[in-house]
């Protein structure tokens, strides 16, 4: 894990708009995107498709409760 990533308290949210034909495709691309960015523990918090694409809020957990937190080492 990168040094900067270790300082994330719990999760990284990525909010964007994905051009896609429906919600299903939006979700598929969302997961693919987070995977490409290197996140392992990924959730789609919010996804709403209208017309041209999907408004999404994607989450990659860096630490979950009970983990050994990188920011606590410093």
């Amino acid at each position: 894990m990168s040094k900067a990533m270790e300082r994330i308290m719990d999760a990284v949210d990525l909010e964007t708009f994905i051009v896609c034909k429906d919600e299903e495709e939006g979700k598929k691309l969302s997961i693919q995107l987070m995977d490409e960015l290197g996140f392992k523990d990924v959730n789609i918090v919010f996804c709403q498709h209208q017309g041209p694409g999907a408004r999404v809020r994607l989450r990659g957990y860096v630490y979950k409760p009970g983990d050994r937190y990188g920011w606590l080492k410093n």
Partner: protein
Amino acid sequence: MSFERKKVLLAPLDPVHDIGLKMIKRGLERAGHDALLLPPDYSQEEIIKAIIDNNVDVVLISRTLGYGVAEILGRFVDLAEAAGIRDKVKIGIGGMAIRPELAAELGFDAGFGPGTTVEEAVAFVEGREYVPDEIRGKKAKKDITRGYDYSFKNKSIEQLLDKIVDGIIDYVSDKTTSAIQRAELRRQILKTSNESERQSLRLEYAKLCDKIVKDFYEAGKYREKTRPLLPEELKALETYVNETNSRMNPLKLQHADKNPLVFIQYGTGCPFMDIAHIKSCEAWGADGAVHFDPSWGARTEGFFEGYITHEEDGSVITYENLKRIKDSLSPFTLWQVRAHRGLNTPETVLLAGIIGADLTKINIAYGSLGGGTDPERLTVDAVCAIKYAAEFNMPFDVVTNEELCGVPAYKAFAGMLIVSKLGLRLGGKPILQPLFCYSPEVMVSGQMQDNYVDFNAAKILCLRNIVNAPIWCGAPIGFLTQTEDRVQSSLMTALHASLASSLGVDGISIASADEAFSGGPISVAARIDTLKATQSAFRFFGKSGIVPTDSAEKWAYEIERGIENVLESIVQNGNFIDALYKGLLGSREEGAYPGRAGRGTVIKK
């Protein structure tokens, strides 16, 4: 230090925007300086000329538009150097497009981004360090119950409540439970300094626990998905908390005096993550924090000991966990430990009291109709718990969460008022906690078909018509109105907070922007979203308010009549506990089920 009058030139390097500079000009003049404000849309060369012509000491440039900002400001510095004024004149830049790091990179003496105060700019001009108007030290804990005398305006309801409370006190007088016995053992365990006595008390305690807890005391086994926190982790946490406290300068959410206190709810499972979230929320203005324990903890007889983390929702209650959380709080933070459901209610309140919690939460009606605990068991336990709350001078809220099961507000309120009156009789300080929610009742009956305002307002108006008691809306406000959309969720919270403020309530519990998301733990960023939204809403409404329609008064009257009818039916029934089983305070058809945990465990003394 003697005052040195400065000559300051203020110049908007922008086609139109200069409002920020106008405010700073006023602040500088008030502070005794000479301030000259150039009109917008001057060229850079004209500004340089004005600096020279007026022989100023300080220049403040503003830039709102973001496009090409680095190039434009970079050129300004070059021109200032070429004109020979760079070393003689102090130059600061500010505005929406400015960040301090950009200013430093371009060679300015200071950069003021969005949110800069006039005082900050004046401090720069005067060459002194800016000391923000800190609320640290000024922010103090507020007693929610202060100023309330609990006098009943509705005497008929008061008389009915007194009769029911008489019956409860009489019923429990010759009864006890293992939870009550454990609580007293815990008190002794914490009191004794003799290790062998402590060990023998522990074994006695273990005999009164479920197997899973007994195994911990007798064989050192931990429950699945829990683990002890290591000494090095505890040390690292201490460092983290100390460092965080040293730079804590909390924001203030309230804009008007009437804005309620704002509580957040935590229970990530890990006391360390809880502390990290609480500290962040304190910094962003939260006034209080509410401890959530795991749902299995409420259905397990007995508590573990030590520092324990948990991989699922809800943070395990142990003396050590609670103490560590309490010790990490800022002195101004109100801290509540919930004890409104479950098989460890007396010990929870006792621990909270010993450790120094400010508030707790007890409700027999919800705990036994929606919380899963047997009505008789919880009634006996709750009377003991309320006595502990009184002993430690800890006010407790009585939350009507059974509304979320489908119980109509008037029935839930009847239960809330019974427990509140019981609390008063036992020397406690109850706080009414009606829900601000889109409940099953209103989904079916349509009271929120038009708006979310009237029925929530009706609840508050109704309670005010009955008794002069503190009100803290829960929990969290806006329940079932929020979606997974961060903006929508934060907005719903902020609007409900504004409604609560408009109705003059004393406190609110707010959700995070993750309220409707169930796929993982709540993130700290989602907590800050709703705190910021609430702060903005308080700023927006100030002392003004939200005006409900006539429906609010009509429904307030109907709820009050409904409460009275329920209380009458309980008095006629003759026994409060029996009334809970029979559904008089919420029936199976309405979604309330008398809990089974702890059934048949009440012991005759």
